[in-house]
């Protein structure tokens, strides 16, 4: 059956309105990025001009990809269990909305703010580096391929984390447990980006392409799985 844009938009609007007033979620969206911003900022600002060469071997920017990985996982983990907790799941599922519309709407409502946060934090980092780091550091750090990788991998990673978070959210009755587990299962992804950041996995075009294609495939599968586990009956009766 055709997807209705209006219904998807209805879900997105509602989610974004609710998000703004949900202090737990706003807190998560602010604290997680800060945690991952502190280490690179400290590292870069303490570098002297002559030691900037170390940045040729490390890929500090890649480390920041933990933000678009973890923030959407935490937000998506709340998406369904949060509705169940508020008792709003049943009225929502009683409407003509199709599961794909609901999943898509909820995914977009996580994707958009997560992307915004990730890019803003990245921009902030770039500005800090440009303004406050020693001479040569900014040039060594902000090389085009890395900035490009940052821009491209941010949405790919965010999408993958959203599917993980959603699947977990549909399975859990307690939002805290769901959030913790979602962050936990996103850690392997963070591990991979961090290993690239610290040059354990070499950062080259082949790795980047492989990683990108892998994420595209995973995201396709993730969408399938997320809609499949979203079973009305189990969601309604499963909490007993």
């Amino acid at each position, binding site marked *: 059956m055709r997807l209705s844009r*209006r*219904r998807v938009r209805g879900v997105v609007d*509602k989610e974004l309105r*609710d998000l703004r007033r949900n202090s737990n979620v706003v807190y998560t969206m602010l604290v997680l990025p800060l945690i991952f911003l502190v280490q690179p900022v400290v590292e870069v600002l303490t570098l002297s001009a002559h030691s900037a060469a170390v940045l040729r071997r490390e890929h500090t920017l890649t480390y920041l990809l933990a933000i678009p990985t973890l923030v959407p996982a935490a937000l998506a983990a709340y998406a369904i269990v949060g509705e169940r907790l*508020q008792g709003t799941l049943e009225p929502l599922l*009683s409407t*003509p909305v199709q599961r794909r519309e609901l999943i898509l709407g909820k995914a977009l409502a996580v994707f958009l703010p997560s992307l915004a946060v990730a890019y803003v934090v990245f921009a902030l980092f770039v500005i800090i580096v440009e303004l406050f780091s020693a001479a040569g550091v900014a040039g060594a750090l902000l090389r085009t391929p890395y900035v490009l990788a940052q821009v491209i991998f941010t949405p790919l990673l965010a999408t993958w984390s959203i599917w993980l978070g959603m699947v977990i959210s549909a399975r859990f009755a307690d939002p805290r447990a769901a959030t913790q587990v979602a962050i936990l299962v996103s850690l392997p992804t963070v591990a991979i980006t961090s290993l690239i950041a610290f040059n354990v996995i070499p950062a080259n075009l082949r790795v980047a392409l492989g990683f990108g294609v892998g994420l595209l495939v995973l995201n396709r599968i993730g969408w399938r799985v997320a809609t499949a586990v979203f079973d009305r009956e189990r969601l309604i009766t499963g909490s007993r």
Partner: protein
Amino acid sequence: MTGAAEQPALSVRSLSKRFGERMAYEQISFEVGRGEVFGFLGPNGAGKTTMVRTLGTLIAPSAGSASVAGVPLSEANGVEIRRRIAIMPESPGLYQRLSVRDNLACFADLYEVPAPARRIAEVLSMVGLAERAAELCGALSKGLRQRVALARALLSEPQVLFLDEPTSGLDPAAARDVHELIEGMRERGVTVFLTTHRLEEAERLCDRVAILNTTLRSIGRPAELRDQLFTRALLVRTASALADPAAVFASLPALEGWHAQGDSAYLLEAADISALAPHAVRALVAAGADVLAVEERRHSLEDVYLELVGERREEAAR
């Protein structure tokens, strides 16, 4: 859909739902006509909510078949059925952090309601909340939340409106408001499927009621149910005990049985009270009795209900 107007609003045939070992409801059949207010009456755990969820395509039945608003109940028809109905669940389930208007706006999109702003204003004024549209749902009283939930269910002008215990947990004034709103629905010709465990509610609001406790016990107009279940009776009070009541009542036409109620009152059972009453009075006067009162003994739906619902406990005790 052809001929949808002539089809019943709900048609349920031998429907059952099992949760593991436990039957939530079993072998239920009934029909609800268009424009009817139909009561689904039973104690807690009788299977009312499960029936509403089944007909609302939230859960699948284990056996049997049904059609809802003219559409056969099946997984594939879920969207089509949900488009034609609305459910007000037991708890209102509003987004507490959103305003009344934003709650309704979301559902207007989900039902693809045309001209949503106007329709939202309409349903809010129907439930008397026109002035409260900007308030957060979390700040409203329970009764007002229930009204918002009702407004939400009316948004799409559903062909069948399911109300699951709409007054449970409300104070009498708030419950009365909801009753008035349901009567308003009837006047608009909306088909209402109302579950309740409150007898006076069913008796007051419903054209017909089904009484169930896992299985269907009885179904009919409230007055019919009374007649079906109890022989009607005439209660006669005399100034003093009759010397030989058996002789007085022996020859009465239409009398099906009698027994004394205390010293000087007698309960005369008959299917047709109006055929019995004049003869009974004449016979009593002829026997020299001073008749103090003659009245028809009425059963409330409560008697019917307890009788029907009680059966199960007896069965279980055996």
